[in-house]
């Protein structure tokens, strides 16, 4: 029986397992973001947070303990300076796990394990992008797409500042989930993070607005290339269109309100016109 036992064995002997986890923790401290299997990520996160606590303690004993654990000496000073400063006010929870798609070869669930508030914080990137897209959606409610393209979306940063103090059930430009993520990401960060998020959100809005133009340009370029190749082969009247980005099912364009399951089903998601035929739920 294994009731309540917190540790995983990973089909390895204890010495192998401990060394593997030490290696993973050292790599995490070195790169601040690693990609591994979900089970390994969960166990590594647990250990890494304990070592960061040692770094926060900052005395002789904790230094020796951390030194005995970390496998690369250059990583050790990082633990006692950078991480101790970064997590000085944060009571625990110094790591974050994002679930990624399963691996191709063995269908193993893969995760991205990262240190919170690192310079390449994945959650911050995704939140900034989501904020950008939702501000755009809000603008599209009142304005036509062409109008939005011409005017753009300004004041991303002021909108973001307003969101920081709202609660769970207040209505505003952002969805409750995005607002919650924004508040979490901003909790132990200063003012410059706000500017960063605003800048990223604005940049992402411009990327979204430029997407159709970029796609048509790429398509024209690919078509002309194919025409050139056909002309060299000796067929000057070649006519063909090779879709560079194929049409994918279930993609929600900006301003879309229907749920993903409905979009993904396509025609089967729409109720048919004849009696008794409902949409697939």
């Amino acid at each position, binding site marked *: 029986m294994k009731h309540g036992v917190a540790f995983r064995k990973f089909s390895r002997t204890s010495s192998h397992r401990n060394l593997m986890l030490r290696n993973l923790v050292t790599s995490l401290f070195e790169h601040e973001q690693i990609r591994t299997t979900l089970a390994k990520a969960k166990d590594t996160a647990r250990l890494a947070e304990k070592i960061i606590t040692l770094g926060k303690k900052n005395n002789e004993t904790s230094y020796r303990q951390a030194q005995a654990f970390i496998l690369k000496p250059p990583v050790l000073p990082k633990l006692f300076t950078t991480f101790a400063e970064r997590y000085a006010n944060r009571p625990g929870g110094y790591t974050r796990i994002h679930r990624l798609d399963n691996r191709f070869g063995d269908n193993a669930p893969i995760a991205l394990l990262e240190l919170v508030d690192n310079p390449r914080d994945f959650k911050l990137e995704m939140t900034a992008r989501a904020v950008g897209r939702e501000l755009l959606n809000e603008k599209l409610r009142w304005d036509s797409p062409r109008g939005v393209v011409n005017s753009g979306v300004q004041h991303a940063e002021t909108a973001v500042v307003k969101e920081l103090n709202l609660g769970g059930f207040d209505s505003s430009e952002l969805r409750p989930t995005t607002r919650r993520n924004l508040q979490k990401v901003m909790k132990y960060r200063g003012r410059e993070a706000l500017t960063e998020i605003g800048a990223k959100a604005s940049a992402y809005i411009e990327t979204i607005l430029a997407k159709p133009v970029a796609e048509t340009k790429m398509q024209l370029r690919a078509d002309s290339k194919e025409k050139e190749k056909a002309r060299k082969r000796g067929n000057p009247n070649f006519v063909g269109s090779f879709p560079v*980005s194929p049409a994918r099912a*279930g993609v929600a364009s900006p301003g879309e309100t229907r749920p*993903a399951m409905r979009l993904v089903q396509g025609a089967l998601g729409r109720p048919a016109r004849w009696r008794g035929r409902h949409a697939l739920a």
Partner: protein
Amino acid sequence: MASLALHQTRSFISTFRSSWAQLPVAASLAANLELRQKSFSWALPGLQSLLELLPPIVLAVPKSKISHSRKSMRSANKGLKDKRNIVNCPACGEPKLAHHACRACYSSIMARFKVETKRLATETTKRVSGGSWSRRKAPLMIESPKDS
């Protein structure tokens, strides 16, 4: 002709045996040989084969070929189940699994990080070596060129 030959060989063998039996050493040998020839046999005593040890119920066998319809009925529950945890990514709008990171966003973000790291690395080395670009600062890209 064959029967005649056989009879001749039989008589020959019997004469051979009798002539052999006359010798004193050969007599005991012959007796021994005959005894051994009588008792030896390949089959185990009292059993036609080992199968007689096993009870008949062990040798289960289907009585008849399963019909196409019955086979299909049994396979009715074995189909792949649809995934219902599909949501739209809040950033790019593409379909993604719930509670998972969006594949397109993840690869674009990681690609941009790689490009930035490479650019920073080459910039510092160029600055150190004093190349022609050592004082110029290239603007940061919003998205990597491969993104559509």
